[in-house]
């Protein structure tokens, strides 16, 4: 039985941050959860979906984050408790609804869990979601450890119901994907009935219509709610202080930086000199609590990821209350003490504190550091990112990049988000020439597709995954067709949302809870929109390339669906289609006529270049048996045999 639904109160278990959040939501009696896969948030909706049956939940992988937030909001309007979870970029996608949602208010407790990715460990940006809380004027909570991740989530629902508005809980990769001890609480037995009341007086928050108008009234109400929250936050157990009453340095921190800061203080042995004010409630800031701690120190170091949200809010408060608390010297990002990019760690913070206090601190003896760095450089070869063996994208981009070269008009591909984002790298033959947000490839390419009137002859292409297609490409496609752009769209249909863990999407017959659902047909949709549509198997390299060359030559919007299942999908993994081996007698290797096409250019991890024998060979363990390499070998040395 999943420990997430373990009924034993008081038991201590090891939970991942995201699991702790799930447990907190279950203890709060969440009824509905919706989201869109996005690292580092995906486990939240996934785990809730896994226990949906036992806990009587409705859990959905929505088509995109905006709709996910809307689905969760509906539940809240019907007096249920709901949660929506997404990575930082998802909040951007949902932001217009978020603005109106928080202006109109909620009913059943609703929590937005946002998982940011400082350091862009699994993103192509390190954007911030914290600012949204300030901007749409709702409370922001940030758990500082795993117990808090659970406890805060549970409490967030209560807070949301008290103020009848959304509460934002912000996590980061190093919290969401890290694990720690959590003492379990009691699971909720509540089984509320969904009911949407709307006939009451127009201004009645629980029984009137749910609207953000009249704006002056609603906005005033929203700000009053926030004032109430400020009071509540003054005494919140999630804000803690450790250290001397009059510290030489006050560290103000939140989120995962709490653990880093605590450790930094421990490393330096300065817990009698440095005070650590850990804030779990970071918007709005509790003014009295902050004034008290700020007054007791002259120097303040604010520690956070990524941009100085907390730092600037603290400084504003300090400026407003300067007469009471005195002038302060602030350290943080704006003065360069801590980096303004990337994630933090105990060493960066220890270095900052050491500098401020004038302590000599060396993390690693310089000789050892030099030696270890040299060793690593010389003896630990870099591991570049690549597509898995058998990945359809390798074959797709092989065909795409060749087709563009043969078309010979300097055509290019606008990329999108997914495993295939890696096609900007050599593993995808550096095919992508722009890369932004989900669905942006099609939008940007549809813009390029209008520039022929300014003399641009380069054909524009875009790629997107099957999941991305539904999430945000469709409107861009409508735009391109309606405005008669010249554009070739390639949909890389590998039957799943692969990069984030193979979640389902509207193109599949199964949903998050394993239920049977209708699959939407991408080809049919594109044809209905008015695009010219063709479907190919990317493993048929020459046919695919030929089709692409032909389509590139045509005007208007053309959609080529490259359909082949992801190598990691359960069906594919179960069995190899081909046994593949290299006939050494035929292998040309490094000689003119081949020059290691399969290992040097195609670069599938299943193919190994044997430097001793100067021949290529197949790694049977890694090879996925797709047989595509057999098609590209100029000597016909790669042989494939169908497995019975």
């Amino acid at each position, binding site marked *: 039985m999943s420990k997430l639904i373990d009924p034993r109160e008081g038991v*201590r*278990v*090891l939970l991942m941050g995201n699991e702790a959040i799930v447990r907190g939501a279950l203890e709060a009696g969440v009824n509905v959860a919706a989201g869109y896969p996005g*690292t*580092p948030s995906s486990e939240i909706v996934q785990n809730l979906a896994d226990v949906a049956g036992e806990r009587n939940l409705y859990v959905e992988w929505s088509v995109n984050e905006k709709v996910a937030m809307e689905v969760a909001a509906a539940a809240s309007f019907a007096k249920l408790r709901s949660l929506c979870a997404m990575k930082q970029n998802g909040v951007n996608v949902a932001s217009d609804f978020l603005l109106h949602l928080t202006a109109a208010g909620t009913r059943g407790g609703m929590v937005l869990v946002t998982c940011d990715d400082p350091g862009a*460990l*699994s993103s192509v940006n390190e954007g911030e979601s914290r600012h949204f809380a300030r901007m749409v004027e709702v409370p922001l909570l940030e758990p500082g*450890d*795993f*117990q808090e991740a659970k406890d805060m989530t549970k409490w967030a629902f209560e807070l949301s119901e008290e103020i009848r508005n959304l509460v934002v809980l912000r996590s980061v990769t*190093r919290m969401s*994907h*890290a*694990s*720690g*001890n959590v003492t379990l609480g009691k699971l909720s037995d509540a089984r509320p009935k969904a009911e949407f009341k709307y006939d009451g007086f127009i201004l009645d928050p629980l029984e009137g219509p749910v609207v953000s108008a009249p704006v002056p009234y609603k906005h005033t109400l929203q700000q009053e709610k926030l004032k109430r929250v400020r009071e509540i936050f003054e005494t919140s157990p999630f804000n803690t202080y450790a250290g001397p009453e009059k510290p030489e340095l006050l560290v103000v921190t939140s989120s*995962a930086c709490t*653990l*880093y800061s*605590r*450790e*930094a203080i421990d*490393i330096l042995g300065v817990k009698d000199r440095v005070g650590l004010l850990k804030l779990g409630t970071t918007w709005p800031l509790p003014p009295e609590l902050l004034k008290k701690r700020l007054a007791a120190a002259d120097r303040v170091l604010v520690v956070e990821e990524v941009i100085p949200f907390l730092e600037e809010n603290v400084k504003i408060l300090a400026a407003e209350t300067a007469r009471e608390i005195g002038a302060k010297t602030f350290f943080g990002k704006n003065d360069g003490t801590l980096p303004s990019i990337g994630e933090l*760690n*105990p*060493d960066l913070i*220890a270095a900052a504190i050491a500098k401020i206090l004038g302590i000599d601190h060396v*993390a*690693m*003896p310089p000789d*050892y*550091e030099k*030696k*270890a*760095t040299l*060793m*690593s450089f010389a*003896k*630990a*070869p*870099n*591991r*570049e*990112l*690549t*597509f*898995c063996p058998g990945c359809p994208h390798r074959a797709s981009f092989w065909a795409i990049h060749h087709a563009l070269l043969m078309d010979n008009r300097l055509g290019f591909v606008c990329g999108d988000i997914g495993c295939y984002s*890696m096609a900007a790298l050599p*593993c995808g033959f550096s095919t992508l020439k722009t890369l932004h947000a989900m669905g942006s490839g099609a939008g940007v390419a549809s813009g390029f597709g209008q520039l022929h009137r300014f003399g641009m002859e380069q054909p524009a292409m875009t790629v997107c995954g099957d999941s991305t297609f539904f999430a945000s490409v469709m409107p861009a496609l409508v735009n391109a067709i309606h405005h008669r752009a010249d554009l070739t769209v390639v949909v890389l249909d590998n039957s799943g949302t692969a*990069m984030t863990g193979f979640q389902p999407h509207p193109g599949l017959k199964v949903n998050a809870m394993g239920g049977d659902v209708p699959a939407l047909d991408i080809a049919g949709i594109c044809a209905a929109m008015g695009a010219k549509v063709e479907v190919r198997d990317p493993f048929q390299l020459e046919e695919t390339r030929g089709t692409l060359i032909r389509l590139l030559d045509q005007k208007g919007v053309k959609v080529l669906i490259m359909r082949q299942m992801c190598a990691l999908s359960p069906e594919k993994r179960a069995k190899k289609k081909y046994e593949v081996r290299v006939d050494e007698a035929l292998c040309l290797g490094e000689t003119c006529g081949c020059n*290691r096409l399969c*290992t*040097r250019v195609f*670069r599938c*991890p299943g*193919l*190994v*270049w044997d*430097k001793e024998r100067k021949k290529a060979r197949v790694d049977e*363990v890694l090879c996925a048996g797709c047989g595509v390499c057999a098609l590209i070998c100029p000597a016909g040395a790669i042989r494939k045999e169908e497995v019975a």
Partner: protein
Amino acid sequence: MGTQTLPKDPFNIIITGVGGQGNVLASRVLANMLVHRGYDVTIGETFGASQRGGSVMSHIRVSARGAWSPQIPRGKADMVVSLEPVEAIRVMKDYGNEEVRILVNDRPIYPVGVIAGELNYPAQDEIAGALTDLSRHVWFIDATEEAIRLGNPILGNVIMIGAACGLGILPVGRAEFAEVMKESLAADKLEINLTAFDLGAAKSAAAA
């Protein structure tokens, strides 16, 4: 086997390898063993893109004093359990010191740059040389080979966990391993996992 107290607090273990080797699973097992003994454990991991052929590291902080940074501070690893040889060298660059106990599974997984013929993968004795230069306590374990003999390469991780315990430094051992395994495995699988554990423990106990 195992000591009752931690040699230091927090005690820092890194389990490292290549995406897809079962790194995460191994760290969970070891961490749960420690939780069963009442310790506070913090695990820090890197998921996502690192699965597509990249290096994977799990940082395990063991403490009686609460949660710690999911990332071990620079130079502060106490034990490195490396499921792949060069990954051990890689982690020593940021987290190493001369007292780290390093256990290395000797089976290489070649990076794409190596199999493409562009980068060099060092020979075993070169790797051993580099590691013994960086730490006084290095042991190579033929975990994958033994695991294949037992019937499943993935048991290599269990062998390495056994080896980590077999050093006699950690406050956990076979008993905790069996407890944790019973919670998640079918009864028929338990036997082979215990065999693998014992195999690993014996190897490191002999070498230490």
